[in-house]
């Protein structure tokens, strides 16, 4: 534990807390103290219990054993409202916005500024929202509804909401998972400023560079237990990783010797009014192509259109030389295309279905005979891939909702890998996945490519893009602004193209589409 106990009691501390969900022991006797003026990092594999810990701090769950202390005094947080009253602001792992309400209302719900007669002061609310966004360096119209915001923007609204509390304690569960560098830097600047003002901050992330860049102390968890806490300065990434997974991770990005074959996925002049235009590229068998760009560049939209989820206005998509009918995911699947979507909760998984059924959802027909499902075949097919991806699930018949975020992500991957696609499109495949699994996913992707599968990867993590891709396509405002070969792809080159500065690489697109926002 901490070598020098501070004079003041910590504003928020968890003492010997345990929490079980049915048979799953999510937390077993974890202690953690958040000190004023300090940023505390929390690391752990997927399912280690980080979010559960957050839920206890937020008053969402009550510990089965142990307790929470505020300023040294034990308290029972009966609900989120109680935690808020105690000065704890929380950013949950998944955005929790009200899609029908305006961004400003989302931020101030239940705490709207008032004027005479206890009426809501809309103008004050709008101004305050604009100020918060200014602090974060983003421009989101406070009056627009939250519906339609990208995940990244949703996350930013969440951050603004947490800031609006002016809380003594700020708990952030993977706030950066959906953000790109610019926003992350802004967030860090704000977090440091808050620390300067004496706030206690808990920061959870699977990205070690972030954890080490920001945090003063780091706690590592494993399997619901507390492994250790130490000063960031005294720790190294390797040490933390070893504590987390109980072994060394050789390398995050596997060595690859790409041997691209024939073109498999050919996209030409794809366009959708106001979203993207003139998008064309080819992915060859055995090749990993990354689609990079800033958040909001339209990458997800392009791959969704390719897979047939979204309509497109112009252009063609062909797999193995045969054109795909637009807007028909089933046809794309039949042609051997798979898409791991970016939003696992909304798009990737059916939360109420079991882990097993989610994993076999795309293979319903293949796993049936005479039109009837064969449960045995289903179970074994599911078990195979869930095992390979080391999905941590107590019971594969339990709803997939009971898994931790990272494990859910693995189930989405399993679901698509099981179909043995010819073209695998992955959108942010490692968002929220821990290092161990991340290395595993990378290894898998490259192994698949090695088997001749064409892989198209959308990623906001530059290191991942650079580490994995044979070729990098960079998008900016709905256009491909650069195509970089593995050897030319540097951070600078990608960022230049991604911000539309046309440096390095070629810019196949013309001027940005006129219909851009």
């Amino acid at each position, binding site marked *: 534990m901490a070598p020098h106990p501070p004079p003041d009691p910590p504003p928020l501390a968890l003492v010997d807390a345990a929490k079980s969900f049915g048979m799953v022991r999510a937390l077993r006797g974890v202690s953690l103290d958040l000190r004023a003026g300090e940023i505390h990092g929390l690391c752990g594999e997927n399912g280690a219990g980080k979010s559960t810990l957050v839920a206890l701090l937020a008053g969402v769950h009550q510990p089965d054993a142990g307790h929470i202390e505020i300023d040294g005094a034990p308290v029972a947080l009966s609900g989120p409202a109680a935690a808020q009253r105690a000065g704890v602001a929380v950013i949950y792992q998944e955005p929790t916005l009200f899609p029908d309400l305006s961004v400003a209302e989302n931020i101030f*719900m*239940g705490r709207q500024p008032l004027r005479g007669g206890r009426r*809501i002061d809309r103008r004050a609310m709008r101004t305050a929202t604009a100020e918060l966004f200014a602090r974060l360096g983003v*421009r989101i119209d406070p009056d627009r509804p939250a519906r339609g*915001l990208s995940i990244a*923007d949703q996350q930013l609204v969440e951050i603004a909401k947490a800031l609006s509390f002016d809380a003594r304690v700020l708990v952030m569960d993977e706030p950066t998972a959906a953000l790109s*560098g610019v926003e992350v830097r802004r967030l860090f600047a704000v977090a440091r400023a808050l620390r300067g003002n004496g706030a206690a901050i808990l920061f959870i992330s699977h990205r070690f560079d972030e954890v080490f860049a920001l945090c003063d102390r780091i706690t590592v968890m494993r399997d619901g237990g507390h492994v250790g806490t130490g000063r960031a300065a005294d720790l190294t990434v390797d040490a933390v990783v070893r504590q987390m997974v109980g072994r060394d991770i050789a390398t995050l990005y596997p060595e690859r010797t790409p041997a691209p074959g024939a073109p498999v996925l050919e996209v030409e002049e794809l366009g959708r009014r106001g979203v993207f235009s003139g998008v064309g590229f080819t992915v060859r068998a055995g090749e990993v192509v990354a689609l990079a760009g800033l958040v*909001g560049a339209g990458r997800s939209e392009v791959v969704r259109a390719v897979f047939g989820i*979204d309509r497109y206005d112009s252009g063609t998509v062909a797999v193995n030389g045969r054109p795909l009918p637009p807007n028909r995911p089933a046809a794309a699947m039949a042609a051997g295309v798979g898409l791991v979507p970016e939003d696992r909760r909304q798009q990737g998984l059916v939360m109420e279905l079991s882990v097993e059924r989610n994993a076999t959802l795309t293979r319903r027909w293949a796993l049936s005979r005479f039109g009837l499902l064969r449960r045995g075949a289903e179970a074994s097919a599911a078990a195979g891939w869930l095992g390979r991806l080391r999905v941590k699930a107590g019971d594969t018949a339990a709803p997939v909702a009971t898994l931790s975020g990272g494990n859910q992500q693995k189930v989405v991957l399993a679901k698509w890998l099981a179909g043995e696609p010819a073209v695998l499109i992955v959108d942010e495949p490692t968002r929220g996945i821990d290092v161990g699994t991340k290395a595993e996913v990378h290894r898998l992707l490259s192994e698949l490519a090695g088997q001749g599968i064409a892989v198209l990867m959308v990623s906001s993590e530059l290191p991942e893009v650079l580490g994995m891709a044979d070729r990098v396509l960079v998008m900016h405002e709905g256009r491909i602004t650069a195509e970089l070969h593995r050897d030319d792809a540097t951070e600078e080159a990608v960022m230049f193209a991604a911000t539309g*500065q046309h440096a390095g690489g070629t810019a196949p697109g013309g001027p940005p589409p006129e219909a851009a926002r």
Partner: protein
Amino acid sequence: MSAGSGTGASAPVAEHGGGDVRGARRLRQVRELGILLALALIVAATAVANPGFLSGQSIRDLLLSATLLTILAVGQTLVIVTRSVDLSVGSVLGLAAFATGTLFAAFPGLPVAVAVLAGVALGAVCGAVNGALVAVARVPALVVTLGTLYAFRGVDYWWAAGTQINAADMPASFLGLGRTAVLGVPVPALVALAVVLAAGWYLASYRSGRELYAIGSEPHAARLSGIPVDRRIFAAFVVNGALAGLAGVLYAARFGTLDATVGTGLELQVVAAAVVGGVAIFGGSGTVYGAALGAVLLTTIGSALPVLRVSGFWQQAVVGLLILVAIGMDRILAVRAARRLRGGGPDGT
């Protein structure tokens, strides 16, 4: 993500969220305008065909007819906005109406105000039963209120036991409530107007009102925000019940003849009024003004068709068609608004 490296801090501030927000908002406002327009069209067309439709008497009749549905639609909106629904309103109205009549029959000298309060209170109690079941037991409102639709009606039948209360059983001062007019506007219509304005004002300007929208928009997030979700849902049901009770009292005052079947089948009309008025059936959006307009629109259609001498056999079909047109129009506006906001996005499934 390597924070701190890259192209430096000079990266431009990106406009997030994008979309033609103002245009989208304008479109949403049109939503209520659309209903108003449809209303004006129907009134105009009917008046051209039969000028008698615009006579003072006829307008008074129209306002009176719309009163009950409007009050019910306002209450229903409160509930629907929280992603619930109350199918039992017809039964609650019937029960409250009968209770009011019985009260007068038993105590002929009762002050009118007491009877009104009693009816409203009975409605609130029924609403509280619904609310408690939905909020405390946390079960789907549609199932619960479908159950209480039968149960309350059963109680009504059992209570009435085949008797009927006639205008003669109620004091003239009470029946007068349904007939007197202030500045040419019937009192019940004024009551309905007051209810609409009060509810609209409350929903738009008070924290707890906005919280109803939050709950309907994303119940889970509402709990995380520390909103007392169960309490709010409960309150919405109680208010809705009380309004149904009020409508029952007004029914008694206006129609004078009361038996156990009063208000049968009204629930779907009420839901239809709210939906036509642009209240999203899955909660989170819609206003009581829209719902009230929806109610007036439906009543106007109901009154205009006989005046237009549309055959009785065609009337119901026309009403159905108009409901479809109204929700279709609403949908078109919503889609357009969404398009402007995001300039694309997945085609809804």
